[in-house]
């Protein structure tokens, strides 16, 4: 079974503890939502899970997780590439790329460049890119900002099936999105979990 374990993780920035003694075990098919105020360390936890940031103390244990896909808070699309290229450069599964493009409603603007898109459009491309990558773990950091409610519901419906065999963490300010995804909610408040 695919598994991600945070084992007494600490992380401090500028001598301030951002993450203090955080522990959690996340298994495939059981999505988890990190919920809390801005600046409480949710994105840091996502970055630690993705391997982009090393914890100061504690351990990250993964089992059967070789590839991780991330929907970053700031989209991080390639400005010199069209929406289609942004998706296809990461896509390991073309069929999945087609399907998620349809679910995200991006088929009409696949030829556009990021600087020709709205924030919501870019976010949908970022979601499609992460899904098309088809990793063992999916990390979603504020993945639905700027996307309309109806579209969010369609994407969540798709994700519910898609993440059945994946480890998934979502960071969101909207607790209803986490509930719709059937995610277990971990409240993060002043380093208290």
């Amino acid at each position, binding site marked *: 079974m695919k598994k991600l374990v945070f084992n007494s993780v600490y992380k401090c920035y500028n001598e301030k503890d951002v993450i203090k003694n955080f522990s959690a075990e996340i298994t495939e098919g059981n999505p988890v939502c990190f919920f809390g105020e801005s600046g409480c360390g949710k994105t840091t936890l996502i970055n630690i899970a993705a391997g982009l940031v090393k914890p100061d103390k504690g351990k990250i244990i993964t089992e059967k997780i070789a590839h991780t896909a*991330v929907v970053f808070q700031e989209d*991080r699309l*390639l400005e*010199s590439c069209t929406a289609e290229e942004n998706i296809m450069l990461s896509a390991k599964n073309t069929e999945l790329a087609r399907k998620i493009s349809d679910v995200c409603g991006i088929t009409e603007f696949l030829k556009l460049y990021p600087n020709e898109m709205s924030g919501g459009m870019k976010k949908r491309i970022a979601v499609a890119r992460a899904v098309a990558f088809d990793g063992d773990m999916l990390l979603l950091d504020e993945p639905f900002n700027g996307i309309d409610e109806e579209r969010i519901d369609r994407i969540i419906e798709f994700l519910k099936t898609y993440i059945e065999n994946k480890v998934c963490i979502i960071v969101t300010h909207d607790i209803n999105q986490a509930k719709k995804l059937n995610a277990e909610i971990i409240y993060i408040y002043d380093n208290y979990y």
Partner: protein
Amino acid sequence: MKITDNRYFKILITAVFWLALWQAVCVIVGRDVLIASPADTFNALIEMLQTAVFYKTIVMSFVRVACGFFIGMAVGIIAAVITCANKTIYMLLKPAINIIKSTPVASFIIIALAWMKSGQVPVFISFIATAPIVWGNVSEGIKSVDEKILEMAKIFEYSFSVKLKKIYIPSIMPFMRSAIISGAGFAWKSGVAAEVIGSPKYALGSKLYDAKVYLETSQLFAWTAVIIILSIIFEKIVIRLVNAAECKKETKNEKTCF
């Protein structure tokens, strides 16, 4: 549209103004040996155009400067990649590049004359003029690559060639463009200066020097005009090459992936 809004009319008016000013200065100075008139310069140019040596001279100078420039570009790019990848090499190379940047071109020309044949000196000097500019700008371009985009590329397991084509080259291109434009101008000026001092056969700089020695002021002015025109042509060619490279990149981007 008013006639004064016409681009060609504006160019004509500007040219007439400066030619009139040039002629006025000639009349005031009144000595051909100090300043040649526009008419004398034009006549000298027409005479030069009728000789085979003229064409051989401009071709040879053009080739020398172009060789130095393109070698300088290649070395500048390679040095930038290496120094950005390895901080120790950067630390070792930086003083050398700073010394090259602050050393007068004339010093390099004199030193180079002791090392190589006079025909090779302009190539070397154009190279020395171009490489540090390209190195500096390309290094800036590499450093300007967004760390967050590199993190994204790591997460989505982009290959080296994809990172190069889709992340590094688009970031470097604007810096490269300004390096090429300023490098081309500088290479041309330095190359001709090396020809003046080294006086190789069939060289614009040598012709300039000969005209000065024999007090042929109208020829001196005519050769200067030729150098300016060639410098502009060289810069335009280089800009076209950059534009063509960018267009090729955009056309490739239009390919369907789905």
